[in-house]
């Protein structure tokens, strides 16, 4: 316990984390509290730092692909996609249509399972005894089973390749996936009935961590957190990468910008993703899945640099790659959405209660593998 410097009030400095039940990993916040109210908050990073960018400079271009699985380990496939997209930009590689559709399918399924897991996590942060989390994980498990059937691994998929995907859909996979996604709206309705009307949840989420659109843009927020503040910005629409321009979907955005909007936005996005998936299931063409011009061994993109980004489930996932024409990247930089969405954490948290800090952190939806890399 320390006296606040010159403030005259009795304040309490607490180091929340790195070992703490609801910091989503080894995140740490130095919080100064006046009673239960937060007056200062300083995030501390690096407890899960694995030197990902340095490691990549010592691997071949393809060799970094399995490492991207471990960035945001809740949704590895979109990480794969972000990296593959950046390299394709760097080397000017065309991707066959079927591969693009497969990418959309697995990418949107990843988004669904990430957002579903989010619903569980934020309830955990609010102190619910894990029921919502278990329902969410129950459904996520089924999607992970589909991923295992396709990529061979539930989480560490290592599925994308430069110019396509690694393997084609196994026989019957598409039907299984389609049948499963058809059951999803029912689950989502049940989840909404379970959660959104709950008075305790409403009072915990509404009016907490409000962020204006202007500050959100300046602070570099991205993904659902940005859109909850009322900014209409979805990279799937703006950049139109992959085959997203051919698919019809809507981009939801909030009007208040508090935790409840972020919470609801995830649910709305899942519903849109289901729409995208149904169209993709219907439209997927036959054809090759990999650009035959791309070599597995000894892949060398031309000299230059590129910044490729996708709309990951957590926000804008970007890769800034610099090539010197060699077999290894000269510079490999990741723009992690989880880290940059934390930029405004202090602004959101100051003046709220300590319990709100957990909810705000949960509503941003971070994964420490990506924050610290």
């Amino acid at each position, binding site marked *: 316990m320390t006296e606040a410097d010159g403030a005259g009030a009795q304040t309490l400095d*607490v180091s929340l984390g790195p070992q703490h039940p609801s910091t989503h990993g080894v995140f740490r916040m130095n919080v100064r509290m006046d009673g*239960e109210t937060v007056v200062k908050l300083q995030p501390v990073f690096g407890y899960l730092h694995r030197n990902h960018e340095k490691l990549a400079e010592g691997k071949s271009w393809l060799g970094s692909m399995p490492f991207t699985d471990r960035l945001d380990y809740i949704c590895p496939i979109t990480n794969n996609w972000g990296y593959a997209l950046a390299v394709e930009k760097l080397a000017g590689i065309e991707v066959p249509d079927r591969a693009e559709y497969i990418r959309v399918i697995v990418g949107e399924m990843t988004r669904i399972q990430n957002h579903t897991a989010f619903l569980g996590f934020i309830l955990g942060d*609010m*102190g619910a005894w894990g029921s919502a989390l278990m329902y969410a994980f129950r459904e996520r498990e089924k999607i992970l089973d589909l991923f295992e059937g396709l990529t061979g691994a539930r989480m560490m998929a290592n599925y994308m390749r430069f110019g396509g995907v690694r393997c084609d859909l196994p026989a019957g996979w598409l039907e299984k996936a389609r049948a499963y996604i058809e059951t999803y709206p029912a689950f989502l309705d049940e989840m909404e009935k379970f959660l959104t009307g*709950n008075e*305790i949840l409403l009072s915990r989420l509404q*009016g907490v961590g409000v962020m204006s659109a202007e500050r959100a843009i300046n602070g570099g927020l991205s993904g659902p957190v940005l859109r909850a503040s009322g900014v209409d910005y979805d990279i799937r629409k703006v950049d139109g990468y992959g085959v997203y321009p051919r698919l019809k979907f809507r*981009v939801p955005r909030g009007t208040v910008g508090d935790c409840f909007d972020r919470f609801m936005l995830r649910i709305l996005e899942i519903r849109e993703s289901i729409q995208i998936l149904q169209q993709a299931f219907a439209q997927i063409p036959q054809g090759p899945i990999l650009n035959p011009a791309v070599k597995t061994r000894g892949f060398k993109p031309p000299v230059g640099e590129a910044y490729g980004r996708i709309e990951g489930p957590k926000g804008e996932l970007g890769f800034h790659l610099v090539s010197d024409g060699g077999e290894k990247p000269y510079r490999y930089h990741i723009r992690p959405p989880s880290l940059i969405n934390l930029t405004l954490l202090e602004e959101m948290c100051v003046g709220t209660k*300590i319990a709100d800090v957990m909810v705000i952190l949960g509503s941003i939806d971070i994964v420490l593998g990506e924050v610290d890399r």
Partner: protein
Amino acid sequence: MNFIDLLKRIPEICKTPETLPLEGKKLILDFVTWLGSLVGIAVPPWVLTLVNILVVIVAIIAVFLIMFALMSVWERKILARAQNRYGPNRVGPWGLFQPVADGIKMLTKEDIVPRNADKVVHFIAPIVMLVPALILPVLLPYGRGMVAIDLSVGILFFFAVGAGSEVAIFLAGWSSRNKYSILGAMRAIAQMISYELPLVMSAVIVALVAGTLSPTGIVEAQGGYQFGFFPNWFVFTPWGFVACVLFYFSALAESNRSPFDLPEGESELVAGHLTEYSGFKYALFFMAEYVGMFAINGLLVTLFLGGYQAPLPFLTFIPSWCWFFIKLAFLAFSLVWVRATMPRFRIDQMMQFAWKFMLPMSFAALFSAAAWHYAGRGLLGWGISAVLVAIPYFALGYFCFTRHHSADNRRYLFSE
């Protein structure tokens, strides 16, 4: 008197399950007398009194500890099923021996005392927590004529002793020298003092209506059936229903159960006042919490759910003490069910809920009970009192909650 006679009485006792515990106690006393006659001395009356007390104490502690053990596994089972898991099912049949495994684990764990802790207070806090929790069950009537101490001011004594656990939680939180602990302890004090008011208020209503503070008297006041089948329990009157719900939620808060588990608040305060406790001391806290929870829900059964009375006239063949425990089990189940559903309150919202909603509602229930009483305790009174609690409920609900928070007032825009 000889031993054979005593043995012969056992099947006789078993024939009337209604009085089985009482007759069993008498049998044990007679057995002691027989033992005395065996060695050729007349057993002095104080020994018999002592044995009487000991038998009751042992019985209550044994019953509540067995209930604690069963509850710890049952709670995990229910919670697991509500979350679509199996729950403990590895130790013994259906995981029934899980408490034994837990106990062994707890006892063999290292007892850690932080270096800077106040060691004496740190040591006595779990004891201070457990003692009042074990005193509480003494006051409850478990069946007809089955109450260990029939105090005429039983309710008052119950609340007086029950407040002791607050001291223990603060001792635990303060002595641990941990910031989470002290925060948890401060929350616990604020919460318990706030919720003591609606808790006591709703009990006061019952005491006023029943005209007695004795738990046995209150249960007897709820005897008999309206129209020959409808039990006269207080929960079936509008004021009684409201008071019962208020009591239920206050009891949740008093026993630090979800959604009022702020003192432990594992998502923000790690484990609150329990952060620095381990091993057997932690187990004592755990035990005290559960026994306290049973006791306060036993009081709820006594006050509102007709205690040991059967719900329907033709069900009276089931012994009265069974009914008490059946109702208690139902309440325990509902506690877990609530825990499986709800997120936790925030500290300021919890205080608001206590002071702005529950306390006014308990006053409303008080007025409603008065109206019910003066309108002749009949259907007319029922209607008047229903109106008298419904209006404040919706008004308070709107002004305290719906005005601020609602899922319907949010708009979401979509762009193609």
